[in-house]
């Protein structure tokens, strides 16, 4: 469904992503693991069209994406919940969700999807008129995911959804990802919490300073010594 080939992305003269290749199959949950500065967020930002790659190709459902402006990529069915949530903090929950559906014209479908987000995260429904900035970290993360779902994406990219969350909240978020997958949404997940990410991923890629160093199924990576040492704190 999504294919990234030899992607190179730079900030100024510094290459942050140095030629990575990976793919995400339809209906899969795929995770990119790596420490800070490995190039995970840069990769997602390039797929979304916020950054222009230096070289390489990004293909989605047989169509080349690199070079398209960001709003065209959203129209193709790719949504991203960015690192740090980046909510419109002064706006209400409802207005944030409406912005998530900006590219859509079917008012009734938007309303139905909004209700679905409220079903998934009842706390958002109860406080839908309150400003997003007033919510706790976990609730804000729910809103960020809900907002990304509002464009009915085929591919949902989540950048560090567990960042700053309690273990219980992290579990809730991971369960939600599982439910979304069951609904047919393909998910590309960037995580530092390797345990949580690998336990639900079909496939994982490990990034180090701009390169993919190895990849395998989520289950195998969970048991992999190198992964256990670097990302799971085992010795």
């Amino acid at each position, binding site marked *: 469904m999504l294919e990234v080939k030899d992607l190179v992305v730079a900030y100024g003269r510094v290459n942050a992503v140095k030629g990575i290749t990976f793919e995400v199959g339809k209906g899969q949950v795929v995770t990119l693991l790596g420490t800070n500065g490995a190039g995970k967020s840069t990769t997602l930002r390039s797929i*979304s*069209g*916020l950054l222009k790659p230096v070289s390489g190709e990004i293909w989605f459902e047989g169509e080349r994406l690199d070079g398209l*402006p*960001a*709003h065209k990529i*959203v*129209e193709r069915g790719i*949504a*991203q919940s*960015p690192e*740090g*949530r*980046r*909510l*419109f*903090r*002064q*706006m209400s929950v409802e*207005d944030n969700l*409406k*912005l*998530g559906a*900006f*590219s859509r014209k079917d008012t009734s479908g938007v309303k139905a999807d909004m209700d679905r987000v409220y079903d998934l995260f009842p706390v958002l429904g109860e406080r839908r008129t309150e400003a997003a*900035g007033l919510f706790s970290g976990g609730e*804000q993360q729910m809103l960020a995911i809900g*907002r*990304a779902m509002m*464009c009915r994406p085929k591919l949902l990219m989540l950048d560090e959804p567990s960042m700053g969350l309690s273990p219980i909240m992290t579990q809730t978020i991971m369960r939600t990802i599982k439910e979304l997958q069951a609904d047919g949404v393909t998910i590309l997940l960037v995580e530092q919490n390797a345990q949580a990410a690998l336990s639900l991923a079909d496939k994982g890629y490990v990034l180090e300073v701009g390169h993919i160093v190895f990849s395998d199924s989520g289950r195998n990576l969970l048991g992999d010594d190198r992964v256990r040492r670097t990302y799971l704190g085992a010795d």
Partner: protein
Amino acid sequence: MDLLDLFLQQLINGLSLGSLYALIAVGYTVVYGIVQLINFAHGEIFMIGAFGAYATWMLMGQPTDWNAPMSILVLLPVLIIGGVAASVTVALLTERYAYRPLRNAPRLAPLISAIGVSVFLQEAVRLFYGEIPGFPTAKSAIPFPSIPGISGSAFQFGGVTVQMTAVFTVGALAVCTVFLWFFVNRTKTGRAMIATSQDPDTARLMGINVDKVIMAAFAVGAALAAIAGVAHGLRYSNIDFRMGFLAGLKAFTAAVLGGIGNINGAVVGGLVLGVVEAMATTFIPGQFGSAAWKDVWAFVLLILVLVFRPQGLLGAKVVDRA
């Protein structure tokens, strides 16, 4: 004239002048709120609006036989539409060719480009307006068409004289403010503008076409500036290729005064600035209260605000991000 009447008279004069500043100031603040650019060519967009309205009048065959209700209901709106069309066109071309290519350049580059556009537009009008067949040269001031029922008309209210041009200017600001509120808060493009001003990258992730939003910001600012251009023409009875310089500077002052990036702030800042100018020329004794000093007081106010309340009266856009 007793002191209260004098005060009320100056209040009305100040609000009328301030409305003119406010209409222009909105353009500075809306564009700044979205692209963090002080568009120093915006004063010239105001000037182009006045010249566009004048050109429309020329193209209509310089009608002078319109009388009171029809002149206000038909002739004036047509002139305004012509002015708005000219300003919006020039503003969009400026954005496309002078600012957009510099969007990722260091902040100083578009600022210098803006100053270049400002000089370019002034000189273009000065040198080429008279070259259009049948048009007067714009090397000196051109008398602006008068609108019977507004130009030169006034009514008494107690001891106070209210010029119809003042009613028009204040009324135009009121109508524009209502429309602007509706546009920003109730339309999809308006919501996209707010989102883009708060966080442009995330706005793009929502599927918002940021280029379109930026164009909308320039267009809205230009439309209001053009209306101010017509109001200026009616108020002073003539227009001049240099009229955008001081008016632009004052309106920029008004935008900073109210809090740059804040639309309500631009309106309040414009009105405050106009009233301060009007009051200063009346109530400050000696030569310091003479008309020659009014610009001094306007900029003294700017300096005081920048020193003691740099975020402006209503507060600038607060960058607030988790």
